[in-house]
């Protein structure tokens, strides 16, 4: 399993565009918002948590279709399905690789973009914490969507349509953490909810994703 993870990471880094693209998209999105709503701190500060989370979510979406597509095309997914490790494990690992190549760079970049959007200083910690807790769920749900649409020729748009509604609870609790943190409130409740969602997603969604993959490999 570790070999598989290493292989996926190596493929993602060497193919190019894995690490950089999502962060670049995130940057563009955060840079576009002030042009849209105006540069005043009073306008940007209240919407900064939401913009940062929506931006992270959309950047995450960009690279989802690559989770299984390449392996599906060259047939290595069939080999993985017949390999001794369970397909559920494979999907979880693929999601983990996606998180390391997309989620982690986003989290690292988010504080800088927070400054661009005038996010209050004391909220930066909560921003990082909420993204750390929430983005694994995004990757795992994305892997599920990718598993469903892997056999389709133009699955990209459909993938977004299927996955985005699944992201709503994560988005709600993620932004709530930052908002409460920024106002100096107590964000424990949303943190627990978000952690619960992520834990549940990590535990259950690999089974759904593996079931979808089996159908597509039939």
């Amino acid at each position: 399993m570790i070999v598989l993870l290493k292989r996926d990471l190596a493929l993602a880094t060497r193919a190019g565009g894995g690490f950089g693209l999502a962060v670049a998209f995130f940057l563009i999105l955060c840079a576009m918002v002030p042009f849209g709503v105006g540069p005043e701190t009073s306008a940007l500060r209240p919407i900064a948590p939401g913009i940062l989370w929506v931006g992270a979510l959309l950047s995450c979406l960009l690279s989802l279709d690559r989770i299984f597509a390449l392996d599906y095309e060259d047939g290595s997914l069939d080999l993985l399905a017949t390999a001794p490790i369970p397909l559920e494990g494979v999907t979880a690992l693929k999601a983990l690789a996606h998180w390391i190549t997309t989620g982690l760079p986003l989290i690292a970049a988010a504080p800088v973009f927070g400054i661009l959007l005038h996010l209050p200083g004391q909220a930066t910690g909560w921003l990082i914490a909420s993204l750390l807790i929430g983005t694994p769920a995004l990757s795992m749900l994305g892997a599920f969507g990718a598993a469903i649409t892997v056999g389709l020729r133009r699955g990209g748009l459909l993938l977004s349509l299927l996955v985005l509604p699944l992201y709503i609870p994560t988005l709600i609790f993620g932004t709530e953490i930052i908002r409460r943190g920024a106002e100096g409130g107590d964000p424990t409740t949303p943190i627990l909810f978000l952690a619960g969602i992520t834990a549940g997603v990590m535990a259950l969604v690999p089974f759904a994703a593996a079931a979808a993959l089996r159908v597509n490999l039939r």
Partner: protein
Amino acid sequence: MSIWEYANPVKFMRVSGAVLPWLVIAAAVCTIGGIAWGFLTPEDYKQGSTVKIVFLHVPAAMMAINIWVMMLIASLIWLIRRHHVSALAAKAAAPVGAVMTLIALATGAIWGQPMWGTWWEWDPRLTSFLILLLFYIGYIALWSAIEDADSAADLTGVLCLVGSVFALLSRYAVLFWNQGLHQGASLSVAPGERMSEVYRYPLYLSMLGFLLLFLVLVLVRTRTEIRRRRLAALQAREMRA
């Protein structure tokens, strides 16, 4: 004699064909009767004549949720017991459910404009219905995107299961996110919160009417799907011959 016998398409076609005309009549009588009766009710002391949209709004909203539950059950039956009729019924129900959700949202907006002074408010109930509509759209889009019929049934079934969990999760997450403007349950049994009887009985009738209407639409659409499936099988056989 068990209910699973109707999973046989031939038997399903025979029974549904016999029942359908009666269902159509019953649905027409209840829906038209319920709404017409609703129009004859006296005006509400606070809301005036706008209250009469309730006879469309509440049944549509109720069916929007119930149809998703029916799709969930049908998907489970397909995934567990592999009855084709079940998968086709789920497929047939989805557009009906999406339209019911749209009706609920649209009538709600029309009602909300004079009463709340706004077409749209990010109220938990309204937001949940919008999310439900997104789930319906995704489900329908997935059905139409996959060519192989059995894979499509499998994948949409899995999507329906995961979607149900997340639709429910979103419902409560949204409750956490914003407190609402919408009233509570329309048919609460608690005294004092109940609707007046003048409104309640026509409402029951139109709810029954919408339920029957849904049954009619699903049966017709399922029969169409079965016929389409048969046609495809015949054409495939002809191609081979």
